[in-house]
């Protein structure tokens, strides 16, 4: 079934040019991990970008090398084929993104959809099996909202014959980032670090054997009263709108009403 789907993508939708030079794979003895930050935000620091930096710093003394890719900048500036070639050489990806309508944002969908085309066009005889992890953050406080988005990354992994590890789901993402230094966040950060240690160990353990248990997703949220979080959120919108010279009532406009 997957093959047919791949055939479909290959025949109709490949935007990536013909097979490039087949550079021999990097001579390296340590694993290489790519952190893919896929928030489309332009002018403000995103939760995803912050998390990517957090992983980089957390793993800075590990025996594997870590590289960061920002999807928006890659699409805007770089030759995507070059970015995809770098991805081909990695041993693991951690795909970090915001939840948009209960799945991936459009920008990441484009990036991965085209990567699958690249993958199919450039298949090399022997590929090492990559590992893929997902980190999804959402605005709502319930981390369960991210469950399907993690499954989407698992489905993507299957298309590139990679091994899906597990996902970290962050509810109330903007608060986890915004209040990261507050004492009530300590527990969440302890759990985040445990999850990052699990990723590290899984990467270092190499290919998972069939009899090994699949890893469970980790669901986390800010340890903060939910109603208060939502009411802060709503007040926040009214405050920002005021700064844009809009009164609260104007936020309810219905431009498309007949």
């Amino acid at each position, binding site marked *: 079934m997957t093959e047919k*789907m791949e055939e479909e993508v290959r025949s109709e939708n490949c935007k990536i040019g013909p097979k490039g030079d087949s550079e021999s794979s990097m001579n390296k003895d340590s694993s290489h991990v790519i952190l893919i930050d896929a928030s489309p935000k332009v002018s403000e620091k995103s939760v995803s970008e912050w998390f990517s930096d957090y992983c980089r710093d957390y793993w800075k003394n590990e025996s594997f090398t870590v590289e960061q890719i920002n999807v928006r900048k890659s699409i805007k500036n770089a030759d995507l084929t070059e970015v995809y070639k770098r991805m081909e050489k990695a041993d693991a990806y951690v795909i970090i993104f915001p939840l948009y309508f209960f799945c991936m944002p459009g920008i990441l*969908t*484009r990036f991965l959809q085209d990567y699958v085309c690249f993958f199919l066009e450039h298949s090399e005889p022997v590929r090492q099996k990559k590992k893929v992890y997902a980190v999804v953050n959402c605005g709502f*406080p319930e981390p369960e909202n991210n469950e399907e988005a993690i499954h*989407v990354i698992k*489905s993507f992994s299957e298309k590139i014959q990679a091994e899906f590890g597990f996902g970290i789901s962050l509810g109330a993402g903007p608060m986890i980032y915004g209040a990261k230094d507050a004492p009530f966040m300590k527990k969440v950060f302890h759990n985040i670090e445990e999850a990052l240690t699990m990723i590290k160990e899984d990467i270092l353990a190499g290919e998972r054997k069939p009899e090994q248990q699949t890893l469970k997703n980790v669901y986390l949220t800010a340890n903060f009263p939910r109603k208060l979080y939502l009411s802060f959120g709503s007040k926040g919108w009214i405050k920002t709108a005021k700064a*844009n010279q809009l009164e609260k009532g104007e936020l309810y406009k219905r431009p498309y009403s007949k």
Partner: protein
Amino acid sequence: MKALLLSDAEFKNDGYNEVTSVLYSFFEGKNIKLDHIETATNELAYCTGCFGCWIKKPGECVMQDKIAQINQMSMNSDVVVYIVPIVFGQFSANMKNVIDRWLPNMLPFFELRKDGMTMHPPRYSDYPSHIMIGYAKGLSDQDEQLFTDINKKHRKNVEVLFWKDSKEKLYKELGSLSLSRKGGEL
């Protein structure tokens, strides 16, 4: 009554052609006026999560392209049918841009629902019915379930159908759905 079809020009295979032909004759048979907007690659910008549609120009995307026409027509239809190529169990890239940029049609505030989950309240008193028709060659059961969950677990007023190589089946399924506007939770 008015219906709007939204589709992805990047994945026009046999399945796509069959689905559109079923929809054309289905709506013609019901005497419902039909508009069809296809979205090609790079035709719609992707949402950059700026929230300008909530706090700068409420109800409208601040980026100017075809989305204004799509949202205007969508909000003034009785039913909107999304013909969706399924990629990784979710929307294809072009269709995802259409979906993401629907955000202006909700309010920024939050409501806690009976099922214990948070959602945004509606901006309008009522909305068109949403019908998603997913298609992909060799769609796996897993991706099919995922597409259903993405659309139905968290949102109200969204129906999900799949193209299964049978025009009769699709006709019948469409016939069983409500095609009128609805109020209430999103």
